[in-house]
C-alpha cells in the first residue's frame, strides 16, 4: 500500500495539463452539447400532445415549458424528457391548460376573411377544423385565433364541422357553439341556402341544440348592364322560372336594337310578387338610356345611366315608378349625356337610315299608338333630329295592302302623326316637322308574303 501511495504521489504534475484539457473541453463543447441535448429532447417529445413546447438546456439540466392538456399528459412528457440519454435533471415548467366555462367556439365569415376563434380542445381537432375552414374559404384568408382550453363538450368536433359546412353556405355570417348550444346568423349565399341550413341542423350530434338560427335569405337580385362600347346587354341574377326567363329575354330583344344579349340568368324560387312585370317595365326604361345599369333587389329597382336628351330623362325619372306593381320602390339616377355635334342634312338622313335599318317603330296592332317597346328607338331618332336643327323632317307613314286602301291611308297618317307628336313632346319645333300618310302606295317589298308586308309597314324620315 505504501508503495502504491508513493507512486500515486508522483502523478500530480499531470493534473496541470489535465486541468487545461478540462477547461478547453468545457469551452468548446458546452454549447454544442446543450444544443444536442435540447434537440434530442424535443424530438422525443414530438409524439406527445403539448402546446407551446420549449426545451432549454443548461449543461445536462433541462427546463421544459409547455401547456399540457391533462395531468397524465403533463407527467408523461416530464418522464419522456427525463429518459433522454444525457439528461441529468428536468425542471418542470409545464402547466395544464385552463378550463373554459362555458366552452365557446365561433367561426365568422366576411368578404375578405374567415376567422376561427374561441376555445378548442386539442391540436389535432384544431388542425381538422382549420382544414375544413380552408375547404369552404373559396380562397379568402383563414385566420386561426382559437385558444386551447379544457371542458370541451362531447361530440364537439362533429358539431363544429357541421357548422363549418353551414358557414360555407353563407355569404357572410357567424356560427357559434357555447357548451351544447348552437347559434347561427348571417345571409345565405344562394336562394334556398337558408332552407338547406335549417335541414342540415337536424343532423347536429346528440346533445347539441339550436339556440338561435338567424340566417336570412339573400335578396332576390336581377341585374342588367347596357354597354354601348361592347354593344352588349348583360343579364345576371335570378328569374322565377323558365317561362319568365324566356319572356324577359324576348322583351329584351324587342326593346333593344342591336345589343348582343349575354344571358347569365338562373331560375330560382323566392321572387317577389309582380317580379316579371317590374323587370319588363325596368328593361323598357333601361332601353331608353344610352348607357346604364338596372338593379332589382327584392322589391327595389335602381336605375342609373344617361338618357339621350333632357325630356327623356325627366320622363324616365317620373314614369318608371308608375309602371311598377304596388309595393315596389324605385330609385333612379338618370342624367343626360352630352349632346352630340350638329350635322348637315345629308349626314342626318344617313343617320336616320342606319338607325331604322336596325329596328322599326312598332305600333299596337291596327292602331296608331306607338308600342312601348319602341320608346328606346324613338329616343334615338329624336336625338338624331336634334343634331340637325336647320333641317326640316318629313315623317312618312306606310302600310301593307291588308285592309281597304282608304283605311290604310288614314292609319298611315295617324301613325306618322303619332311619331310627330312624340318628337314635339321631346322638344323639337313643330314647324320643322311634317307628317305624311302614304298608305299602301309606296311598297318597298312584295305584299304577297308576310315578310314583304312587314317591310312595307314602316315609318320613314326624309330630311329636307
Amino acid at each position, binding site marked *: 500500500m505504501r508503495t502504491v501511495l508513493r507512486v500515486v*504521489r508522483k502523478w500530480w*504534475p499531470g493534473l496541470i495539463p*489535465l486541468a487545461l484539457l478540462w477547461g*478547453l473541453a468545457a469551452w468548446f463543447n458546452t454549447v454544442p452539447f446543450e444544443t444536442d441535448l435540447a434537440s434530442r429532447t424535443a424530438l422525443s417529445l414530438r409524439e406527445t400532445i403539448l402546446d407551446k413546447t420549449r426545451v432549454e438546456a443548461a*449543461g445536462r439540466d433541462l427546463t421544459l415549458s409547455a401547456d399540457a392538456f391533462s395531468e397524465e399528459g403533463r407527467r408523461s412528457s416530464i418522464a419522456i424528457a427525463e429518459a433522454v440519454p*444525457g439528461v441529468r435533471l428536468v425542471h418542470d415548467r409545464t402547466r395544464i391548460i385552463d378550463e373554459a366555462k362555458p366552452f365557446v367556439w365561433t367561426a365568422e365569415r366576411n368578404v375578405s376573411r374567415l376567422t376561427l376563434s374561441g376555445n378548442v380542445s386539442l391540436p389535432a381537432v384544431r388542425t381538422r377544423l382549420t382544414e375544413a375552414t380552408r375547404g369552404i374559404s373559396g380562397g379568402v384568408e383563414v385566420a386561426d385565433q382559437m385558444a386551447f382550453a379544457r371542458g370541451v363538450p362531447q361530440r364537439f368536433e362533429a358539431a363544429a364541422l357541421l357548422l363549418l359546412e353551414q358557414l360555407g353556405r353563407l355569404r357572410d355570417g357567424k356560427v357559434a357553439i357555447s357548451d351544447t348550444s348552437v347559434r347561427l346568423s348571417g345571409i345565405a349565399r344562394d336562394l334556398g341556402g337558408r332552407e338547406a341550413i335549417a335541414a342540415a341542423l337536424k343532423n347536429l350530434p346528440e346533445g347539441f341544440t339550436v339556440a338561435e338560427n338567424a340566417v336570412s335569405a339573400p335578396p332576390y337580385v336581377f341585374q342588367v348592364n347596357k354597354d354601348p362600347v361592347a354593344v352588349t346587354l348583360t343579364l345576371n341574377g335570378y328569374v322565377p322560372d323558365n317561362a319568365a326567363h324566356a319572356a324577359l329575354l324576348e322583351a329584351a330583344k324587342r326593346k333593344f336594337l342591336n345589343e348582343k344579349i349575354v344571358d347569365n340568368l338562373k331560375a330560382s324560387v323566392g321572387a317577389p310578387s309582380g317580379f316579371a312585370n317590374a323587370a319588363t317595365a325596368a328593361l323598357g326604361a333601361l332601353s331608353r338610356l344610352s348607357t346604364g345599369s338596372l338593379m332589382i333587389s327584392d322589391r327595389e329597382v335602381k336605375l342609373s345611366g344617361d338618357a339621350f336628351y333632357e325630356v327623356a330623362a325627366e320622363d324616365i325619372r317620373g314614369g318608371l315608378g308608375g309602371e311598377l306593381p304596388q309595393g315596389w320602390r324605385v330609385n333612379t339616377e338618370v342624367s343626360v349625356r352630352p349632346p352630340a355635334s350638329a350635322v348637315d342634312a345629308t349626314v342626318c338622313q344617313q343617320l336616320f337610315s342606319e338607325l331604322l335599318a336596325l329596328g322599326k317603330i312598332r305600333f299596337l296592332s291596327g292602331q296608331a299608338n306607338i308600342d312601348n317597346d319602341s320608346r328606346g328607338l324613338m329616343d334615338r331618332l329624336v336625338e338624331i333630329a336634334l343634331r340637325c336643327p336647320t333641317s326640316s323632317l318629313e315623317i312618312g307613314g306606310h302600310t301593307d295592302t291588308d285592309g281597304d286602301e282608304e283605311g290604310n291611308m288614314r292609319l298611315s297618317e295617324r301613325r306618322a302623326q303619332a311619331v310627330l307628336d312624340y318628337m314635339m313632346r321631346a322638344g323639337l319645333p313643330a314647324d320643322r316637322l311634317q307628317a305624311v300618310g302614304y298608305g299602301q302606295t309606296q311598297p318597298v317589298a312584295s305584299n304577297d308574303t308576310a315578310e314583304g308586308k312587314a317591310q312595307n309597314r314602316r315609318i320613314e324620315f326624309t330630311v329636307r
Partner: protein
Amino acid sequence: MLVLAEFHWGWLLAAGILGLLMGWVGVVQRGGGLSKRGLQSVAVILALASVSAFARIVPGKFGYWLDLGLVMFALYFLGCAVGAWLRDLLVADHRSVPKS
C-alpha cells in the same frame, strides 16, 4: 454517462493518454512527489466533488463541467495506473534477464 463519453471521446482519450504518460514517467521521477497532507487534500476534494456530482446538487453548466472534470480525472488516474503498471512490468522483465 455513456452520452457524455460518446460526445467528449476525444478529450477523454487525451486525458487517458496524459495519464498513461504520467504513469510511465512518474516511476522514475526524482523527488518525493505530493506530500501526505497534499494527497489527503486531493482525496477530500475528489470525494466532495464526487458526492456533489452523484447528489446532483451543483446546478446547470457547473454541474455539467463537474461531471466532465470527474470523468476526465478518472480516465487520467486510470491512465496513470496502467502506465505505471506497464513500466513496472517492463522494468521487472529487464531485471529478470540473467547476466552473461
